[in-house]
């Protein structure tokens, strides 16, 4: 049994339906993550990803089941679990420093002004916003706003960082830069992070574990994909790694076709023991020196083996 720093145990979320019954978004969902891991959850809209994240954050409550973090069942929101919102959710009447300091002074209420400021400044520097402390959010670009959101979340040194599609509203270049920053910060600080994304490449670059969810309503966690790429990976030559396409194709295949038919295909799916997949180098080995030509050697064409 692996270390379960976060353990989601059989949670369900139901909403009352118009006809008097209830709509089940998902039920009997089990998921766990180890300390320091970066988990990404991928699935189509409506599969309940955001609901899972909100339950983890304490902003929403499961209809059934429990969530255990660091050995304790969570109850409501907590300063141990910081959220980075998709819409960055900065307070527009506060400056960059004011926004981060608000979080810092919420965590350490007895700290004096100077200490709060110094602590906040440290995290503003960490996300590369030195010099913009006294700007208001309206004066910042989308990427800079999200950096403030990240600084605010990190500044309270949470046990878990929860990110709800944090980069989806950004342009591709900014997104790439911020992904690099997040990866660097997470590796440096050993931050446990749980992120929702729609972007397969983002998941591959950032995550240690990728959770694949089927389509809702009645969504289930279909597979846990372990990222076979080395821990120290670089955006520039990520796609040259021999495992890259196997991994990417596996996820894309899932999203395109298997996420719809999963329930029918796999009759005896056990939500407590979701298969862990490690898409790796399949049978074919890429000849050394030669660049693999995509038409002749798509490694992902062969289905990776699944193990439970």
């Amino acid at each position: 049994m692996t270390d379960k720093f976060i353990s989601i145990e059989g949670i369900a979320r139901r909403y009352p339906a118009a006809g008097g019954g209830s709509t089940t978004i998902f039920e009997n969902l089990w998921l766990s993550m180890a300390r320091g891991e970066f988990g990404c959850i991928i699935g189509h809209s409506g599969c309940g990803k955001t609901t899972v994240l909100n339950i983890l954050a304490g902003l929403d409550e499961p209809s059934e089941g429990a969530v255990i973090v660091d050995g304790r069942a969570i109850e409501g929101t907590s300063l141990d679990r910081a959220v980075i919102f998709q819409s960055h959710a900065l307070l527009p009447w506060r400056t960059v420093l004011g926004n981060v300091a608000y979080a810092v002074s919420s965590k350490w209420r007895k700290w004096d002004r100077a200490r709060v400021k110094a602590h906040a400044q440290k995290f503003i520097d960490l996300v590369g916003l030195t010099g913009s402390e006294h700007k208001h959010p309206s004066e910042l670009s989308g990427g800079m706003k999200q950096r403030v959101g990240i600084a605010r979340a990190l500044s309270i040194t949470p046990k878990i960082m929860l990110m709800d599609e944090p980069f989806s509203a950004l342009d591709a270049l900014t997104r790439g830069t911020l992904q690099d920053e997040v990866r660097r910060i997470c590796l440096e600080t050993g931050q446990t992070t749980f992120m929702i994304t729609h972007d397969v490449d983002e998941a591959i670059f950032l995550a240690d574990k990728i959770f694949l969810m089927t389509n809702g309503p009645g969504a289930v966690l279909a597979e846990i994909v372990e990222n076979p790429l080395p821990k120290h990976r670089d955006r520039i030559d990520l796609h040259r790694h021999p495992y890259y396409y196997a991994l990417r194709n596996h996820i894309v295949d899932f999203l395109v076709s298997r996420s719809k038919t999963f329930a029918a295909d796999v009759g005896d799916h056990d939500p407590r023991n979701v298969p862990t997949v490690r898409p790796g180098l399949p049978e074919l080995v890429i000849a050394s020196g030669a660049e693999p030509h995509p038409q002749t050697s798509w490694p992902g064409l062969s289905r990776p083996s699944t193990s439970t």
Partner: protein
Amino acid sequence: MTLRLRAAIVSIALLALFLGVWHLATRSTGAAANMSPEYAKLMGLTATQGKSAMPGPLDVGAKLWEHLKRPFYDNGPNDKGLGIQLAYSIGRVGLGYFIAVLVAIPLGFMIGMSPLISKALDPFIQVLKPISPLAWMPLALYTIKDSSISAIFVIFICSVWPMLLNTAFGVASVRKEWINVARTLEVGTLRRAFTVILPAAAPTILTGMRISIGIAWLVIVAAEMLVGGTGIGYFVWNEWNNLSITNVIIAILLIGIVGMLLDQILARFARMVTFPE
């Protein structure tokens, strides 16, 4: 030439046109023919010189200058300087409005934060809001037994509704994500109210306060006509009884200017709390 300058020129031209037409319409047209001198004496200038009973701009200007030279004289109950009359009115509006702020903003906060209180109070607000503030006057006079305090009560009751409704609306429509930020930071209810909800709702609250001060200034004139004694509204009514149209016109002008100043003050406060998104 900037737009501002051009607009100012057009404004001045319009004012000059208005004053010119006014002057021409009210000037004397010379002696009326064939009137026995005794009758003419009896009738006064209006009949003899063909002068309109309506004062012209020059009469009003001269009288206004007279008032401005001595704004604070006090020759007894029915003869006080305009400054004193305006001060009474502004004082009543200020007091009634201040009490309304003290009631409306906390109550609006409660209504905005609690769907239960909102639903429970809604029928009362819906019924009380459309009542003309002056309709309260007899009831106020009967229960309070003091005409001056009754006028303040009327100001209170008319300015409370826009502030109450705007505060409730502003508080209820604070963005969920800002509330969620406060929740994830474990910010307590009171601190949340002051650090998130109040700044977020402040522009809406100030809009309500600005509407309220406008209504209060509209109502004070009518209220003072009823309660009498002091104030610009009473002055207007008194001068009407004196048939001094000149003074009535001066009072109308001053009511407009003071109303504009009150609105500008609130607009300035509103700009201070507005935040760009």
